Structure formats: C-alpha cells, structure tokens
C-alpha cells in the first residue's frame, strides 16, 4: 500500500522503486507540477495545498483498492504534497504497475482522475500582479502615423 499526504518533496524515482514487483512489466507514472498560470490576480508563483487528512487518506486507500480490483494493478502509488509549492515543484505523483502496458495506462489515468475528483485536497493560487512594460513615447508616435 502506498498512499501518502506529505509536506516533503515527491520523488518520481522513489515512485518507480515503490512500483517494483515480480511480473509487473508495465509501469506508468504520472507527475503533476505547479504551472505559472496567469489569472485575474496576476502570475501564479505558488499554490497552497490543504487537505482534510483522515477522510483524504481513507479515500486514497479506497482508490488504490479499486485500481487493484479493476485493472489488476500489482503495485499502486498515490502521493500528494500539501503546504506551499512553488512553480515547477511536483504536487502529485500517481503510478500503477501491472503485467502489461495497456492496463497500466488505464490504471494510472483512473488514479489521477479519481484523486482530483474525490479526494479532499484543495489548492489556492498565490499570484503577483503582472507589470506591463512601458512604451517608449517615440515608438508609440511612429506607429500611430504609419
């Protein structure tokens, strides 16, 4: 069983190790990173993740059981960061190891979709206003007369 809610850095290499097992020839790992999106408040520089820990861990464990039953996954990873994450940091790692690739792809897709839809984790954007570069008066005049 590998479900985790942590304020520590998530390692894709660590997920690969957790997904090792006899006969598990198809391994799919998905990692999500914080993007520098631009919204109404400006450019995102970080996301604050919060969770309701006990129900979240129970839901993650239920998703893992479902993935094993539905896709025959021999090993499953469902890891999520909490706290403040800067742009570029990995917020989530999910992975599935199955006998063959098709089941592993399907299982990994199922894991991330279910996690996003049904696990009590929330993110709040932290953004800075974007400054527009000032136009030089001379260039502005030249364009207006062309």
């Amino acid at each position, binding site marked *: 069983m590998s479900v985790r809610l942590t304020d520590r850095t998530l390692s894709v290499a660590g997920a690969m190790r957790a997904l090792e097992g006899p006969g598990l020839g198809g391994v799919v790992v998905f990692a999500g990173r914080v993007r520098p999106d631009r919204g109404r408040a400006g450019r995102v520089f970080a996301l604050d*993740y919060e969770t309701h820990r006990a*129900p979240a861990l129970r839901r993650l464990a239920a998703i893992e059981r479902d993935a094993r039953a539905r896709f025959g996954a021999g090993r499953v990873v469902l890891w*999520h960061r909490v706290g403040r994450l800067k742009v570029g940091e990995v*917020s989530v790692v999910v992975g599935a190891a199955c006998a063959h690739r098709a089941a592993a792809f399907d299982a990994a897709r199922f894991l991330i979709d279910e*996690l*996003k839809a049904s696990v*009590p*984790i*929330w993110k*709040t954007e932290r953004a800075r206003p974007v400054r527009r570069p000032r136009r030089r008066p001379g260039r502005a005049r030249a364009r207006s007369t062309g």
Partner: protein
Amino acid sequence: MTRRRSRVVILLFASAREALGRRTLDWPVSPDGVRADALVRALARTYPRLGLALRASRFVHNGEYLHDLSTPIRPGDEFAVHPPYGGG
C-alpha cells in the same frame, strides 16, 4: 471540556475558510443535537458570506461523508464543510 460538550466543531476548508477568514467555528447546540440540514441553514443565515460555499459543498460528519442531511449532529461532534475538490 464542558464547553466542547455543548458545541459542535465546524471545520472550514478552501473557499469556506476564505469566506470567513478562519478554519474552525465552535457552534452551540442543544444536548439533543441538531439535524445536519438545520445546521447548514443556520450557518448560512449567520454567515451570509458562507452561503455560496455551503451550496456547493459536501459535508463530513466525524470523518465520514454525510449522505443523509436528516442525521443528528450532537454536542462534541465534528462537522466539516468540503467545497469542490481541487487536488493535482
């Protein structure tokens, strides 16, 4: 301890927390408790800013998802407001 026995602890997350600027509320209830739907209505009346978040939320009672809003919430219970999730 006596105070906790006569109250429900309300946990607020994400937009619900931001609406009130706090993570928890101590909500007084009678010794017989209150139905979950009545509790939600009372919260919305007392804190109109919370209304939008409450309409979109799921509720968690003592760590379990609440499927029946006629469930009694009793003194000492925990009642969590879960706005739509956004992990990943």
